Structures are given as C-alpha cells and as structure tokens.
C-alpha cells in the first residue's frame, strides 16, 4: 500500500524543523510496510489535492507567507473539495493562519485567508513563545488506542487566533499560551483538517497524533484501519520528559 504525502512549499515554508513531521510520517509508514510517496511541492507546481492522502502546510517568514497565499487562492476550490472529501491536512503556525478567514495586521488591514477553517487571526502586541502542553479532546485522540491524552511542543507566534462558533479547539492548554493566550484553547480540528501553533517537529514527540493522521488517511481510502503498533519507547520518553518537566513548573 502507498500513501501520498505532500509537503506544501517546503522551499518557502520550512521554518523551525518542519520537515521533522514529514520524516516522522514517512518513517512510521515504512516501519509498517506502507510505502510513503513524498511530494515536495513548489510554488506554481501542479497539485492534485484529491489524489493526496496527507497534506502538510508549515510556517514561514512573513514575506514568504504573502507569496503563497496568492498561489493557494487560485487552488482554493480544489482544496476545499478534497477537504470535504476527507483529505487529511496538518497545518502549523503560518499554514494554520492561512486556512482561516483572515489575518488582521497591527494597522487594521486584513489579509484574506482561504476561509476553509472558521477562524481568524489578529496581530498581537507581544510574541507568544515557549514550550506547550495541551490536553487533547476526543477530536485529537485515537480513542482507546491512545497512550496519552497530551500533546507537547513549542510555540512562537505573534498572531492571536480566535475560533468561530461551532468549531472547537484540539484541546486545552495546560502549559503555555495556545491559540490566543486568552481562552486556553489550542489548535483546531475541522473534518480531517488539523491546525496548531505547535510548530516544527510536532509529530516525532507526539506519535499518537502522527498515527491518528495515518489512520484517518487510510480510513478515507476505505481500507481496514488497524495500524500495527510500533516500539515507541523513545517517543514516549521524549514526550513524558517534557510533560513532567513543564507541569512541575506550572
């Protein structure tokens, strides 16, 4: 079996070790005998969203983000269709903001997003930086297969993101700031689209989340979904070390 994983614009959006997420998805496929087919898509390249299994959109610097919102706008329809069809999307930081309705800059000017997620972002006065521990909701969990209910990572954003009615966050912040530093929510899930501020290598240390994405992608294909369990001894150690350290501080 093959899984098509697309890393959107890695030449523009590759801040903070984003490629760690792709490496993790690919390795966890290979260890289970699934062949990952990685597409590193560049600006202007042909994209077949419907044929993809997992789409990853990372974060970039402001200038580079501006360039590609334009490029994505042209493809908005196809992307929306694929998402309604169950395409698995992981969007982080800038990628997360772009899928929302708009980004409002400090001077009040609004940059339109794709409007796929009913969220909006307002430039904040100070950057929200640091380690994060989130307690995941049902929506971010694999039900009984879950080893833990937490998600750990690092955030660094000045935009504050707010969620529309009827759309809920991925989980509740136990340590750190999250979406906006105000309502203790972090991230969002809509259909199989995941948005979060935990940038860079989110999946290596959150193997349950990586497996949730893989599971959803396989489900969409209509294949039997039971994922082979892997030896996650190191993953668990890395995850738990941070949970323990941060919650002790809190």
């Amino acid at each position, binding site marked *: 079996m093959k899984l098509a994983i697309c890393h959107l614009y890695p*030449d523009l959006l*590759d*801040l*903070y*070790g*984003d*490629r*760690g997420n792709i*490496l*993790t998805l690919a*390795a966890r496929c290979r260890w289970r005998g699934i062949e990952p087919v990685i597409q590193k898509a560049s600006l202007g390249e042909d994209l077949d969203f419907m044929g993809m299994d997992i789409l990853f959109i990372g974060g970039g*610097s*402001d*200038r580079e983000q501006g*360039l590609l919102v334009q490029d994505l706008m042209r493809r908005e329809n196809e992307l929306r269709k694929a998402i309604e069809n169950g395409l698995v999307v992981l969007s982080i930081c800038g990628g997360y903001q772009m899928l929302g309705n708009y980004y409002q800059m400090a001077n009040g000017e609004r940059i339109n997003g794709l409007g796929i997620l009913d969220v909006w972002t307002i430039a904040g006065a100070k*950057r929200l*930086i*640091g*380690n994060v521990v989130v307690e995941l909701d049902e929506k971010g969990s694999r039900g009984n297969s879950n080893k833990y209910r937490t998600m750990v990572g*690092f955030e*660094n954003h000045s935009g504050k993101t707010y969620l529309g009615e009827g759309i809920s966050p991925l989980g509740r912040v136990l340590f750190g700031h999250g979406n906006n530093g105000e309502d203790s929510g972090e991230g969002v899930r809509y259909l199989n689209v995941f948005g979060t501020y935990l*940038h*860079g*290598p989110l999946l*290596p*240390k959150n193997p349950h989340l990586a497996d949730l994405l893989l599971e959803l992608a396989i489900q969409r294909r209509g294949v039997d979904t039971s994922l082979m369990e892997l*030896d996650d*001894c*190191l*993953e668990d*150690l*890395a995850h738990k*070390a941070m949970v323990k*350290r941060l919650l002790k501080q809190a």
Partner: protein
Amino acid sequence: MKRTWRFWLALWAGKIITMGLLVTGKKGTTLPGKIANWIDPQIMRHLSGAYTDGIIMVTGTNGKTTTANLLASILRQAGKVFAFNQAGANLVTGITGALIQNTGWNGLSRASLALLEVDEATVPKFCEHVSPSLAIVTNFFRDQLDRYGELDTTVRMVKGSLPKETVLVLNADDPLVAQFGTNHNQAIYYGVERTPDSQGDSQETREARFCPGCGAALDYTLFHYGQLGIFKCSGCGFHRPEPEILAKDVHQDEGLLLFQVDEVVFRIALQGYYNLYNALAALTAARELGFKDKVIEKGLRVFIPQAGRMERFSLPEGEITLTLVKNPTGFDQVIQTMIGVDRPLGILIGINDLAADGRDISWLWDVNFERLGTHEARIQKVVCTGLRAEDMALRLKYAGVSVEKLILEHSLAGALKMLTGSWAEGEAWFILPTYTLLFPLREIVEDCQKSARLSNSGAKERGEEARA
C-alpha cells in the same frame, strides 16, 4: 564630544566593579558594562572616540569568535596593542565592559585600535553609538529564532544600521552577506574557489533560496556549504561578486587546514571547511589594515583554537575533539568533518534548552543527521545527554541510527564514561554540546586529561597496549 559628570561616574563605577570582580577571582565585563550603561547611556559613544586607528567590528551568525581571535593573533604578531572583547562578550554590556577595561582612570585609552565582536542583533544599537572603520560580516544562518525573530529581520537590521563610510569586509559566497556591498561605498570580498566538499547540488537546509534583492530563485553552479557557493539570481542578475581574496587549493591534512591566496600558502590548526571562511575574513581585514602576508601567515599559523571550537584532548584511551553546536549549518559542518575523519565514531551529544542555548530545539530537525544514518556502520555509539537528551536520541532514531547504538545518560560524568568506557579499533571521539553544556563537559574532560597525565607512565603504556 564633551564628557559629562555622568561619564566619569560611569567609567569609575565600571572600573571599580571590574577591580572588585578581579579581587574575588572572577573575570567579567558584563556587570561593569551594565552598571556603566545604566549611569551613562552614552558611555560607549564617549569611549569609542579614543580609537584613532579605527574600530574593527566582527559580526554574522557563525564564526564571529573564531574570526576575531584569528585577527587578534595576526595583530599580536604585528606587535599591535588593541582593545578586544574576548570570550564572546558581544552584547552592548560586554562591549562597554571591554572598552572600560582598556580605558585608564584618567579617561585615556591604552590602545588606538579596537577589535570588537558584535552580536548580530546588537549591531543596530552598537552602530547608533559607534562608527566602525571596518566591519567584517561572516555569514547569516538561522540561529535561535526564538530570541531574534526571523532571519530576514536580522539581516535587514544589520544592513540598515552599518554607516556608509564603514569599509565592509564581506563573504562573497553568502548571498545574504554579499548583498551588503550593493550601493555601499567600499566593500572588499573574500571567497572560496572550491573545497573538497563542494558540490553541484545541495541536500542541506538552506537559507536564502531566493534573491535578497528581487525575490527570484537563486541558481547555483557550486555549493560550498549551506547557502554558501557560486550563485546567480535568475531575475535581477545579482550574482556572487568576484572575490579580491580567493582561496584556492583548499585541503585538510593531519588536523590542519591549508589554502592558497595569490602565491602564499596559509595553514591553521582548525578542522572543518567553515573555518576556512573565518581565516579568510581575518586575512582580508588584515590586508586592508596594511599588514604584510608574512605577518598574516604567521598569525594564522600560531593560532590556538579557543575553548570548545574543535578543541582536542588526549586521554590514554584515545583522542577527543570537543566542539560547540548551536545551529543547523554549524552542526551539518561538524557532521561532515566527523565523516571525513574516516574512522569508527563514538559521539556524545549534549542538548540543553536554557536561554543561552536557545529555548526552542526544533532546529535539531533541520540538521542533516540523515548523513550519520547513511554512515551508520561507522557509528559505534551515540551518547545523548542534557535536558533534551531524549529529543536528541529520538531525532537520531528517525535519521536511521539504530536504537541499540543510542545511549541516554543525564549525568555528564556518566555520559563521558559511556563514551570512553569501551572502544573499537581506532575509534575517534567527538563531544558536541550546546552552549550551557560546553564548559561543564570541558571541565570533566580536562580533569580526565590531567589525572591521566599525573598517573604513572606504566599505566599509560598499558592503556596504549590495550588500544594496539
């Protein structure tokens, strides 16, 4: 400029604190600098006026300290007296402290020349008060983004704050640095023809995939490392400037780095081709200051690497190389150097995430550890230590290093024991810590080296027999 009562108060307070620190056996320029700046925010401007032969500034992401030390070695060869902020005290406080140390109680400077390493994020503040006669810009890489914001901003800030009359000594091979010469009065470029590691294609993490001027893609005919190479913009025609100082015939030999500029062969006791750029930067600045090649050659040759920059230690059981790691490009270069050693490898990596290390360790995923995965057979063990030991081990697992070879050990002494406790024939050891682990680890290694020397020679011979 008229010196006010504030100046004298700040100077004397700074000097008294410096003396106080010396008496209590501490070195330090940061505290005196901090207090002096608090009393007189203009003190750096006042003090810097005394350097009639000029102020040389060294900035950039990687290689500032090594470049400044190499240039200092040349200046000493030439018999020059100069003010110098050693030991990487490169923020406003540390720089002020160094200038205070070099100024007498009477306010007169002991030297007419200053050599100052300036942190890239401090350059705007520094140049507000001080007008450097010469500025060396080494390179720009992603480094601790959580502290500085994004790289683009840093580069723009540094570029915007350099005075028009400053002579720029620029790395021609780094597009982010080379662009500083556009529309600047006087710029001198140094560059590299090729190194044995130069390649037509690059798999590394790269900054500056796009032209800093027009945003079009940059085309490369050769990559030296990172974004350093022979480049040309596909849009506006911006290209790698022709270097006045060009290194040819670059190679390594027995821990030495050799290269030729014009007809002279230079050598430095450093490993890794990134150090070639540091030597070239120092050489270019020294030529610009009017020194002869003979003096420069000796200055570079007699240079002894400072703490934790490819520093070597001898234990009875074998040789250890200790080097600081702090960002993807630097780490990639260290990996390249380790693989180049062509021996079985024992590696100890120490990752902390305190403020001085950078709180965000995401950058570990931008390091090309996959290269270690490719040479997996050569790796005997990787000991991971530090607050983020688990993250480091996990990174290596995904890079293809087999889990059996990964050792987690949080105690530093224990980690060193795991590294040197057993070895394969001819195994080379590398210790790679982030900043706050560098000195604690170095101390332990030094102690081992000392006690090995003190123990009788018989024990040493036995050790060598065991190796043979």
